[in-house]
């Protein structure tokens, strides 16, 4: 897509949970200025793959990751990689909105505070406002920043979680089915937000909703049974896929 080197490159990634192979030899690169969508049936490994990109699988004792994953050319599984730092650079948004049971302000301020990103109260106020603005939530919450984050609607909570991810100034944002718990209007707002965030952050999104993948991404990867079946321009994948399995899946003939 662009001539600049990819933001992240994953080469020959294989993941086991105990003896079960969840991902088999997957290679994908994500460019700086693009949204990449991962689609595939449940259990195909798309979420597992997403979670290798900021080492979320480290928290699963039985998980074993092989292969090479690089952020700006640096091996994220290298011994000298600071995992906390990595997860600040590669943020994550989950399926179910999971705000902390704290105020809206504190939800956003928490990350910058532990990473020491703000020198003063006014610095922090700036970060909170900027993050909430970028997440498209500022206008709705600016007069109630001390209210609990959990008091917001589902769609607002999800945008709060995006604001929280943005607050630590990440380079990549991973989204694991960010809209599957939201109604269509809240979903549309998140999708619009993804468009606005594109360019500032490299984005990888796992979604079960193929229309969503078609709407928000520039490239789409189709996973099946732990393998990467096809990875290409979204417009090609949805109009003229090369692989029979991709075609059967996206046209609703799978299974």
């Amino acid at each position, binding site marked *: 897509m662009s001539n600049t080197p990819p933001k992240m490159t994953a080469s020959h990634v294989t993941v086991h949970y105990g003896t079960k192979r969840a991902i088999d030899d997957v290679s994908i690169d994500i460019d700086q200025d693009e949204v990449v969508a991962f689609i595939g049936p449940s259990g195909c490994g798309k979420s597992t793959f997403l979670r290798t990109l900021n080492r979320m699988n480290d928290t699963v004792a039985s998980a074993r990751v092989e292969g090479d994953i690089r952020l700006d050319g640096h091996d994220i599984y290298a011994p000298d990689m600071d995992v906390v730092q990595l997860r600040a650079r590669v943020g994550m948004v989950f399926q179910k909105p999971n705000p902390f049971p704290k105020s809206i302000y504190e939800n956003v301020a928490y990350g910058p505070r532990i990473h020491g990103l703000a020198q003063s109260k006014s610095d922090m106020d700036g970060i909170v406002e900027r993050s909430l603005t970028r997440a498209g939530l500022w206008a709705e919450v600016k007069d109630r920043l001390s209210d609990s984050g959990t008091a917001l609607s589902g769609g607002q909570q999800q945008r709060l979680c995006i604001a929280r991810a943005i607050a630590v100034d990440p380079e990549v944002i991973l989204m694991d089915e960010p809209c599957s718990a939201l109604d269509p209007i809240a979903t549309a707002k998140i999708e619009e937000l993804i468009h606005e965030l594109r360019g500032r952050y490299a984005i990888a999104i796992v979604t079960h909703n193929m229309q969503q993948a078609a709407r928000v991404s520039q490239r789409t990867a189709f996973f099946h049974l732990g393998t990467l079946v096809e990875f290409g321009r979204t417009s090609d994948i*949805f*109009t003229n896929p090369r692989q029979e399995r991709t075609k059967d899946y996206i*046209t609703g003939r799978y299974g």
Partner: protein
Amino acid sequence: MNDHTVKAFDNDIGQLRGLISQMGGLAEDAIEKAMRALQRSDLDLAVEVRSGDKAIDTIEAEVERMAVRIIALRAPMANDLREVVAALKIAGVVERIGDYAKNIAKRVPLIESDHRIEPISILPAMGRMASEMVRDALDAFAARDAEGAVRVCESDTALDDFYDSIFRTLVTHMVENPKTISQVAHLLFVAKNLERIGDHATNVAEMVYFAATGTQMVERERGGREV
């Protein structure tokens, strides 16, 4: 091709394809009847062709409704999407083919039956050729047959050659016998209509090819024909 998990989707696509086949059948029939009416100066048959065109128009409208409904309710993707879009476009083209047949039928009463010139006897052969192209293009659609579609496009050259030869013959007639000019002018239009029908069948074939393969057929070299 595998069935859709949602069976109603298969039914919808099947119905849409059925409408296209039905429409194509009516268009072929219209060409054949129009040429028969011309050859025999059968005014009743000519009227039948003219009124029969309404049925083609009705099916076209039905295809449009059905295609829009499928796109809205089923959100077709990949080959399904290409097929629905192709059906929509093919319906428009077949409707035009029907119009050309109707135009031929309209000319039947304007051609004098007692001073008929000789070239009129070779026009039905050209009509058969055009009608076969329409049938082959729609057969290719029914079978999702990209190679069949390519063959239809290739056969257009023969129809074009036929037209050129008839054109020259008819012009010669006009030069040699100015009394026939009005009749021959109508026959020229008939030949031109048949030639246009072949072009439209070629368009249908190109859409069939796109629907089946996802790529455009390579643009054929068109000869230096000027008319």
